[in-house]
């Protein structure tokens, strides 16, 4: 078993009185591809968003390369403080693709893909441009570099967002329901890009409702319910031969209207 890159222990997240994540232990090793499924409100997006600190964990620790992140102040073992610089470095290494793309509308496609390189990595413009173009080519948008992102279709926007994340050369990529806000006919072009990344052996976590894609994509599937990992296993185990009643009930809802 290879060393885990990212390790989570005892993760809890509260939103006010709502206990969204109720103690999660998890780790991901290089080359693993994890699909996270579950009903809406199960906490799957919140879990993913805690991994790059889009949400701050209420308690628990997250470690990168074996080093726990944040500082615990003396006498208060439950409160972890995260200095901004540390969060920035983590986010450089753990990239994210959002459901709503979150491209920067005041920039062109190329500028979007270059932005992290120039501003965060302080790379020279020419070099950043070269790398951004390479990633845009990879997602099939090498011909749209000078277009403002708002003029693209949803599928194209999401592919730019993937190129923007890839340009940073993250060690782990997080996908938060990357196709959920797309028209059905645009889902395929985004999933094909993600499948291509899987073939390159990248480490990825994917929150999705596309169970068919999860089956082919993942090395591990997690079924999250009520803020805990209800069932974890290979795609075959969780999606085809679920042991838990709850998992079975969830999967049946997806086949209810199939033909």
């Amino acid at each position: 078993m290879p060393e885990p890159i990212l390790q989570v222990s005892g993760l809890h997240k509260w939103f006010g009185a709502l206990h969204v994540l109720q103690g999660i232990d998890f780790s991901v090793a290089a080359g693993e591809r994890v699909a996270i499924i579950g009903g809406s409100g199960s906490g799957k997006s919140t879990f993913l968003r805690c991994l790059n600190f889009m949400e701050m964990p209420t308690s628990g620790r997250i470690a990168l390369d074996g080093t726990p992140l944040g500082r615990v102040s003396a006498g208060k073992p439950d409160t972890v403080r995260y200095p901004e610089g540390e969060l920035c470095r983590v986010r450089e290494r753990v990239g994210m693709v959002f459901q709503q793309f979150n491209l920067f509308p005041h920039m062109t496609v190329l500028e979007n893909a270059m932005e992290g390189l120039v501003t965060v990595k302080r790379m020279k413009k020419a070099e950043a441009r070269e790398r951004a173009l390479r990633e845009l080519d990879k997602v099939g948008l090498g011909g749209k570099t000078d277009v403002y992102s708002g003029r693209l279709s949803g599928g194209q926007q999401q592919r730019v967002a993937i190129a923007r994340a890839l340009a940073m050369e993250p060690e782990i990529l997080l996908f938060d329901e990357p196709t959920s806000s797309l028209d059905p006919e645009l889902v395929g072009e985004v999933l094909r890009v993600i499948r291509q990344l899987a073939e390159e052996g990248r480490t990825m976590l994917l929150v999705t409702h596309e169970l068919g894609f999860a089956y082919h994509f993942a090395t591990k599937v997690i079924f999250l319910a009520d803020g805990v990992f209800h069932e974890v296993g290979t795609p075959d185990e969780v999606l085809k031969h679920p042991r838990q009643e709850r998992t079975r009930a969830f999967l049946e809802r997806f086949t209810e209207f199939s033909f």
Partner: protein
Amino acid sequence: MTYQWDFSPILARWPMLLDGLFNTVKIAAVAIVLGVLVGLVLALLRLSPRRFLRLPASVFVEFYRNTPPIVHFFWFFYALPVVLNISLDPLVAAVLALSTQSGAFYAEVFRGGIRSIERGQWEGARALGMSHAQLMRRIVLPQAATRMFAPFVERSFELIKTTALASTLAYGELLYRAMMVNSETFRPLEVYTAVALLYLVLLVSCSALARVAEARLTAYR
């Protein structure tokens, strides 16, 4: 009875009015630049998660929002020498009064603009590893600027018109010069009509410039 309009005494003194117009533009320009700086600082303070930074900025804004502008002019010019033994010349007092009050108003414009930027933009920037300062400079402020533009121009026009209050400190801006011309010519109707026209020309030119700037700023939409 019909009034006999006669602009010739005013036209004879046009260099005086022109000088006043120049002083109006000067005081307005300085107050806008300083007001933007004050406003930006106040807006960032008011958006801070820390209460001890938010509170003084809120008090400042509320003070200026809820007191008449002319009082600020009097306060800087007449009260400061008495209270703190600092006496300012009319220009400095007027600039201070204008830029602090416009700073308070600009702060609200900026704060509204910054808060109107969707959460997804902040998250998209953070997810790339940007610091707060970087995401403000590269992502939030450039987009907020386009949304702030119209209310910003509106406030600046208010400010330009408020410069007329500097006449109460005997600063030689347009209105003060007009009063001087009036006392020499006894032609108040003509003098103040001319002044209104000069303000009109000034502000209409400004709004033409503003339209050009806005079109450039929002070109990406």
